[in-house]
């Protein structure tokens, strides 16, 4: 009997014992009708070949292990960034259970969100009653300052009209007539989670700036000296937004973070559950119209929002998830240009410290090959950083990246002598990546938690950067933006490199001559 009260064995040890091993072997042999092990081995090896890769890349219909989620997830991500706002997802309720679980697994935080719980009758008659009852219940129970409505694919397929429904619900007294219920249609069969983020952001500004769905006058822009900052869909939102605030405060910039979800996803454990915490106030969201400029940290998360803002008389500019020295330089200099505020000496010193760290360590990274996957902007940011470290972002893949994005990545490759052998893959998934890691091997893989299956199958060490990260804790609390953020990314990469060297030199009397204590 392997189990004991003194030394309780967990699942990762318990089933290794002879009793269980024997049991599982018998199960397989007797009852599973298993494939011939030689055949399994043959197919396993075949799946590593260029021939398999060619078949794999010829896929037209099947998607396997995609690195993207659906629009409504991004909708929720954006909505919780506003003060005491509850996301209200119109459609099937199971979707909301999924978004809440997904965010809670990443941030290790509560994620509040409601559904209009549409079922078969709503599929036939439309979800108007669900909207009427749902808004009334949410408003009374959770006392939000704003309810941000988005949709699931179900509501989109049957063609529910949010604008009309919300109007009717207000007429029926679900919420007061003047109460803020911005909305956005976020069909899951268009784009990805970053599209949903974009649609909700645009929907909220449209609501506040353009007359609240025809119920009030449009706001008149009265220009001021503030700047707006939009982070985009970002797994590091907690660490990143706090870092951006610190940087802006150091510079003396007057700013508004739009959709600031850094507090609601990092609440203290002190005896009180904060369903709402922090966030962009509704007043700030409205007054953002008057700002001098709006900066988006992620171009592909704001493809509709930025032009919308631009049409309201702002300067708008977008970055691609800047990581590292050059990208941060550019970001800060643009902020400085727009605001007229000089970059303070303290940030120059931080820059110098990051350069110093890279100078100390780049010998271990130089010339190493990396495969990267993730959202389009993150891929660009990380690829840019690797290039300045003298590494090669050999393979860059975004399931939700398009050709325009691919051209931008290619231009980045072309700008550096280290980009010569690099290739970009728009619209591909992690089963494509698996083939690439076999046929065009790299030294390290950068991606989210799902990358661990690639690490297992191909032996490529995984550096976890992206969303979601379920199986490592608290990384979302660290920034990856700013020079400090660059430092974090540098350290994560270096830690994996050194761990890998140690793993490969650890066998006594065989390889441990290189098991060095100084590196």
């Amino acid at each position: 009997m392997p189990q004991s009260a003194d030394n309780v064995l967990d699942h990762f040890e318990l089933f290794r014992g002879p009793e269980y091993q024997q049991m599982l072997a018998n199960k397989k042999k007797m009852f599973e009708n298993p494939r011939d092990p030689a055949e399994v081995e043959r197919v396993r090896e075949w799946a590593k070949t260029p021939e398999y890769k060619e078949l794999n890349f010829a896929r037209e219909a099947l998607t396997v292990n995609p690195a993207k989620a659906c629009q409504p997830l991004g909708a929720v991500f954006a909505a919780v960034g506003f003060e005491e706002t509850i996301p209200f997802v119109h459609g099937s309720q199971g979707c909301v259970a999924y978004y809440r679980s997904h965010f809670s697994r990443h941030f290790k935080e509560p994620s509040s969100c409601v559904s209009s719980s549409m079922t078969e009758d709503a599929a036939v008659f439309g979800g108007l009653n669900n909207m009427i009852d749902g808004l009334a219940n949410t408003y009374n129970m959770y006392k939000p300052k704003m309810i941000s409505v988005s949709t699931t694919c179900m509501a989109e397929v049957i063609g529910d009209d949010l604008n009309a429904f919300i109007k009717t619900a207000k007429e029926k007294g679900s919420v007061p007539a003047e109460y803020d219920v911005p909305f956005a249609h976020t069909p899951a069969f268009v784009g990805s989670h970053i599209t949903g983020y974009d649609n909700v952001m645009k929907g909220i500004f449209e609501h506040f700036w353009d007359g609240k769905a025809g119920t009030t006058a449009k706001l008149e822009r009265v220009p001021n000296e503030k700047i707006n900052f939009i982070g985009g869909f970002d797994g590091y939102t907690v660490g990143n937004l706090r870092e951006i605030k610190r940087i802006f405060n150091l510079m003396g910039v007057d700013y508004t973070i739009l959709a600031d979800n850094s507090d609601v996803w990092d609440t203290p454990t002190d005896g009180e559950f904060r369903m709402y915490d922090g966030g962009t106030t509704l007043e700030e969201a409205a007054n953002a119209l008057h700002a001098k400029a709006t900066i988006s940290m992620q171009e592909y998360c704001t493809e509709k929002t930025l032009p919308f803002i631009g049409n309201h008389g702002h300067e708008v500019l977008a970055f691609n998830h800047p990581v590292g020295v050059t990208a941060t330089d550019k970001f800060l200099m643009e902020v400085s240009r727009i605001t007229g505020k000089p970059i303070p000496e303290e940030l120059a010193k931080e820059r110098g410290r990051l350069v110093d760290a890279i100078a100390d360590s780049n010998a271990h990274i130089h010339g190493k090959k990396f495969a990267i996957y993730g959202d389009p902007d993150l891929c660009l940011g990380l690829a840019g950083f690797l290039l300045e470290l003298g590494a090669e972002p050999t393979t860059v893949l975004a399931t939700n990246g398009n050709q325009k994005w691919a051209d931008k990545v290619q231009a980045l490759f072309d700008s550096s002598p280290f980009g010569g052998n690099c290739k970009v893959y728009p619209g591909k998934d992690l089963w494509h990546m698996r083939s690439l890691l076999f046929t065009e091997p790299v030294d390290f893989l950068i991606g989210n938690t799902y990358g661990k299956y690639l690490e297992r199958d191909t032996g490529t060490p995984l550096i976890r950067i992206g969303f979601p990260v379920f199986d490592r804790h608290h990384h979302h609390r660290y920034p990856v933006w700013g020079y400090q953020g660059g430092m974090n990314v540098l350290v994560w990469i270096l830690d994996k490199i050194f761990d890998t060297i140690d793993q490969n030199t650890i066998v006594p009397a065989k390889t441990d001559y290189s098991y060095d204590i100084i590196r």
Partner: protein
Amino acid sequence: MSLANTQSVAEIKARNKELIAEVLKVYPEKTAKRRAKHLNVHESGKSDCGVKSNIKSIPGVMTIRGCAYAGSKGVVWGPIKDMIHISHGPVGCGQYSWAARRNYYIGTTGIDTFVTMQFTSDFQEKDIVFGGDKKLAKIMDEIQELFPLNNGITVQSECPIGLIGDDIEAVSKSKSKEYDGKTIVPVRCEGFRGVSQSLGHHIANDAIRDWVFDKMDPNAAPRFEQSPYDVAIIGDYNIGGDAWSSRILLEEMGLRVIAQWSGDGSLAELEATPKAKLNVLHCYRSMNYISRHMEEKFGIPWCEYNFFGPSKIAESLRKIAAYFDDKIKEGAERVIAKYQPLMDAVIAKYRPRLEGKTVMLYVGGLRPRHVIGAYEDLGMEVVGTGYEFAHNDDYQRTAQHYVKDGTIIYDDVTGYEFEKFVEKIQPDLVGSGIKEKYVFQKMGVPFRQMHSWDYSGPYHGYDGFAIFARDMDMAINAPIWKMAKTPWKTDSKPTLLAAE
């Protein structure tokens, strides 16, 4: 610490009734009326818990429930390891449920085994407009080419499929024919069907009946010789290895487990099950349908059992053995005796640390009742419980065999209600899901996820009980909970939502 320990049952009942009345005040009148039917204080001797169940969730209240797709793909079908399960529709459903349930299995993933992979048709607008049947057919061809060792395919429908009028049955039939009678199973588990995961379980069960059992060649030679001791484990999803730590006991008592449904299960095991002498059923809610079907069609009796905690395990082993001869009955006694010292040691170690502690549960399936015995083995008391997607037969079983007089019962609880109940009752532990975990931990209340075992487990069987006891102790007695309150603040008692 716990209020429940210091009060009489009458006082507890009065308090719980008052609490229910109080939470209902937050709702608009119509909603309050509807929710009132789902909340109750259990009266011992009653045949059920006195709550309505399996009714539509109310819009906007923050139900914790999922959908039919989650019940079929996520629960019943997903763990069948040698088949490829296509999440048919937009990308999200498959993405959020990808490998999230820890249904353990042995196999070479991506080659002959596919559980922790996400196969999706990734519907685009054109698929909605023009239909997705052609794409589905092509997907099946591509699966055959790239994953030649798969033993079958299921089509797990997401919401749009049923709304745009796709004929996945026709596609499945024609492709099955093209691939020499390959098992291809269309499942109509669109998320808008029914009121919760529950209908998805039922639809998935029916799909096994119609597309696996009914398609089998009755004259095919059996893959193994039958024995009088053949049983199938039904309704164990092998979360953290639960089915394995259960199987080992059944085998030790002399039975032969010919199939696992569906954790670490295979198509061959599904197909072999009609030959079982007895189906042993753990999760009644999700797999009673197929058990009843096999009873009617093949004359296989089924027997519910409970492998949480030594009391219920021993009771269950004897109950199962009663279907067999003396050899098996003796086997059951031998197994119980073998593990008694381990159980004694576990209880001696943990019971003193947990005696008198109170627990509130809110889970799905069988757990809101099945785990009560395990807590009681540790001297703990369950003071509140509720189901996400139970039917009345679940509440009958709960009332008749599990809960104590005065227990507060909440069906399809809302976020608001659950938080308020916990705040007022102040249990020593809450057992629920990932969406609830951090809410209660913020309040300073120890918590264990009772769907995923908080990434631990197994919790089934004797080996699992040792882990269960250790985990409950570590949750409740972790030093961190004494530090939740800020020492220089005098009044930091938990406060409710912004609503208060």
